[in-house]
């Protein structure tokens, strides 16, 4: 057996799957998973990844197409398939060891091998210390590792992982990735499904799904090679970086652009020459350099590029008046639940028209901090203010000057789009004509006209995000709180979202955001990294990257590298005995 092109352990041709009427969830999808390889299945939420994995695992049958799993139907190969569903399939009330025992018995692992196997898996996943803890009490990263261990009680030939990285911080994701890579070295064929496009770059073979259709298959380089030379990085311009990005995106030869610290990264339209300093006209000092293409650039290119730079929403927004007080401030905010300190001594101020990011692993305290500022939690000590209003004494006033977008775009799923809009208009005291005008404007700006009577719960994710944003900004608040505002949506929808936010910021709106996407942290003017309930680093994204570069000695780290480096440093300084 050669390492290069071994026979696939699983292959499918022309799979089609429909759920009721409407477009197919999978439309003529073919895939091959080979041993010794990490096969990536990439795409935004709702692209059809889970459906494909379930068909491969024998949990669903396709409407059309052929399937060959280890030389037969999935049902005959169950013993050799390891499967980890999205929510890890753990029994939350059972302990780590009980979960393993359960899956060992289900997979008919001989009793004699139990202890040795568990020992190996617990060492492998570093869960030995927690073996008697109930699975429900584990952190997200640990649950994930346990889920993986359960899928591995009998070494499978095919390992199917459905979004193992979702909702988990970069450190845990990297650890899991390296564990799974070790498995491919043993000759297991692995399918790793993910919505994080940067994970795709590390796979051997990538299948890119969007709306049930296969957009790309092959090694990731094949995609990025195609756009090599079309990605440029613009630095040292005179104006504000957001203005530069907006102007660049409005150009016809630029199809996509993102912020990266002080730099602006642009994707040039196919066939056009990359614009140089004179063409961009952003000042004498402007430097334009080639940048390496990323998988996401390739994806956007296939989709035909992102939105233009000017936000209609922002253009219709009021100008937020300048004031002396900071828009958001936290002074020693602390929250304790019993003896457990969830957030300790949070200090920062955010000026008008700034984007401030709260970063950190799950459970580190960033949502506690976020919730204290928007009035969902009362701080144990310390003070905070939003738009100059104290969050304790003038809670209701503070609340009326902020717009809030909840995680997973929590809208009223059983209410129609129009009813959601009407409700939020009323809640923010817009009555009669004002409400009507605001609803009409939002409907038009976000293109919701066709869907006004549709239940919000049935909207595609991208539209949910738009509606959530519409509900949050309808009353034109001076401050926006965004909790994981782009998780799961496709990159084009993410671009569109940030275009609006950038535009609003220019009108003086202040934004507080939490995010898992490290590249999105680059949009922030400053960020604070929260770990174990404390702020371990603060500053602009470039400051943090520079600090990380000093720690590791490596040049030009990404935001994710910086995140990991800073957390590791904090671990070491806290290390033995002092750990919280």
């Amino acid at each position, binding site marked *: 057996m050669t390492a290069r092109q071994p026979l696939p352990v699983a292959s499918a041709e022309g799979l089609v799957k429909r759920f009721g009427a409407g477009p197919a969830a999978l439309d003529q999808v073919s895939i091959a998973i080979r041993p010794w390889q990490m096969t990536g299945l990439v795409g935004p939420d709702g692209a059809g990844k889970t459906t494909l994995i*379930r068909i491969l*695992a*024998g*949990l*669903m*049958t396709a409407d059309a197409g052929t399937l060959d799993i280890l030389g037969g139907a999935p*049902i005959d190969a*169950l*013993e050799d*398939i390891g*499967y*980890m*569903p*999205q*929510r*890890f*399939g*753990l*029994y*939350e*009330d059972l302990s780590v060891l009980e979960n393993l025992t359960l*899956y060992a018995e*289900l*997979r*008919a692992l001989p009793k004699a091998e139990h202890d040795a196997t568990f020992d190996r898996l617990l060492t492998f996943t570093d869960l030995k210390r927690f073996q008697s803890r*109930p699975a429900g009490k584990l952190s997200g990263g640990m649950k994930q590792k346990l889920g993986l261990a*359960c899928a591995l009680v009998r070494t499978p030939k095919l390992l199917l992982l459905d979004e193992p990285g979702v909702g988990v911080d970069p450190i845990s994701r990297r650890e899991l990735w390296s564990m799974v890579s070790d498995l491919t070295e043993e000759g297991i064929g692995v399918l790793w499904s993910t919505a994080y496009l940067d994970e795709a770059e590390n796979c051997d073979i990538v299948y890119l799904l969007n709306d049930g259709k296969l957009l790309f298959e092959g090694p990731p380089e094949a995609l990025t090679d195609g756009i090599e030379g079309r990605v440029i990085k613009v630095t040292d311009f005179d104006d504000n970086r957001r203005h530069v990005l907006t102007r660049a995106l409005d150009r016809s030869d630029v199809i996509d652009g993102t912020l990266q610290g002080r730099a602006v990264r642009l994707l040039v339209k196919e066939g056009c020459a990359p614009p140089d300093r004179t063409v961009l006209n952003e000042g004498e000092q402007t430097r334009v350099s080639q940048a390496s293409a990323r998988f996401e650039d390739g994806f956007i290119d296939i989709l035909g590029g992102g939105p233009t730079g000017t936000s209609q929403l922002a253009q219709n927004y009021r100008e937020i008046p300048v004031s002396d007080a900071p828009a958001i401030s936290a002074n020693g905010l602390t929250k304790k639940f019993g003896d457990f300190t969830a957030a300790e001594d949070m200090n920062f101020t955010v000026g008008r028209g700034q984007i401030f990011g709260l970063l950190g692993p799950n459970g580190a305290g960033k949502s506690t901090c976020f919730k204290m500022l928007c009035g969902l939690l009362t701080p144990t000590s310390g003070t905070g203010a939003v738009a100059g209003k104290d969050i304790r004494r003038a809670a209701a006033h503070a609340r009326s000057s902020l717009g809030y977008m909840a995680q997973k775009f929590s809208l009223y799923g059983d209410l129609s789009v129009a009813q959601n809009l009407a409700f939020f208009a009323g809640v923010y005291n817009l009555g009669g004509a004002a409400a009507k005008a605001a609803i009409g404007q939002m409907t038009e700006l976000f293109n919701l006209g066709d869907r006004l009577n549709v239940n919000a719960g049935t909207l595609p994710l991208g539209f949910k995000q738009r509606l959530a944003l519409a509900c949050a900004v309808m009353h034109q608040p001076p401050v926006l709180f965004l909790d994981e505002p782009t998780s799961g949506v496709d990159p084009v929808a993410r671009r569109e979202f940030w275009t609006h936010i950038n535009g609003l910021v220019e009108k003086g709106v202040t934004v507080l955001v939490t995010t898992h996407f490290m590249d999105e942290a680059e949009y922030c003017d400053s960020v604070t990294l929260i770990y174990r309930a404390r702020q371990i680093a603060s500053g602009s994204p470039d400051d943090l990257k520079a600090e990380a570069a000093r720690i590791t000695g490596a040049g030009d780290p990404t935001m994710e590298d910086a995140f990991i480096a800073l957390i590791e440093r904090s671990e070491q300084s806290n290390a033995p005995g002092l750990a919280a």
Partner: protein
Amino acid sequence: MVRDPATILIVLVLPLILLFLFGYAVSLDASRTRVAVVLEDSSEPALSLALAYQNSRYFEVTMARTVEPVRDLMVDGKARGIIVIPQGFGRQIQTGRAAIQIITDGSQPNTANFVAAYSNGVLTNWTALRQLEAPVAGAPMSPLQIAPRYWYNPALKSRFFLVPGSIAIVMAMIGTLLTALVVAREWERGTMESLMATPMRMTEFIASKVVPYFLLGLGSMVLCSLTAVFLFGVPFRGSVIALIAMSAAYLMPALGMGLFISAATKNQFVASQIALLSSFLPSFLLSGFLFEISSMPKPIQIITYLVPARYLIPSLQTVFLAGDFWGLFWPNIAIMLGFGFGFFLLSFRMTKRSLD
């Protein structure tokens, strides 16, 4: 499973609450009905009759001279009946043509019936006693004596049939409601998906879900039976084997229904609503537990044939109060097993190894 508050609630708290309520709260025995005796006459026979009412163990008597003041007691339910011993009663009785008026509170027909029956009973006894002491001329003694005998429950305690009946309801709750909930939760949390991706066979899978709740159901049945016998003093005249056999047979349709509901809904909330409407309420109302099936309109009587508890409750009442009558048990057990088989078949089809 044991750590889950919903499970503890359904397995322990709800059954005990139900049992206690049926043991203490729901009593159909009109043992202390409050009535008013209006004594308009003050002759010796009138006083003697009033005394007979006061001494009756069925009544708690309020005395009055006229009807007016006790009218309000009837309106707000503080009295369920008025017995009027009219003016001239003493005179009339000499002529052998006396009558008293028994007024009942018709807004509660069941109680009204009892008040009428017991008042007449007191009256009859009193008449008989007086005739023994001083026979009244011209008044023939009633030649027809009625001698009712209540088998199995001579003291006529409704608790004796309500408590065993509530065991059936408790088992319906554990078998259907809890099973539906717990299995629906597995669908919700995605553990079902992992289980299906293992090489486990369908039968093993169903068995693994059914056996624990089967045992739990039997366990709570035993607990309830012990409570019934030792706390509420319900006699147990049959055999333990018969009790277990019929309970086991009943748990089959209950569990099968729970599995079926969870597989069909895959959602805890909807599953519990449906379990409540399709299992708890029917076993409560349409099983003959509280209400006589033969008194219901025909279409509803037909529906009761589809309620598995209908077949268990008579057997349960029999095994507690009467003894082993296999002639009654066998057909019921067979029907329950049949229902169980049907539901399992349905859940098999619903739970096919597939998420489609």
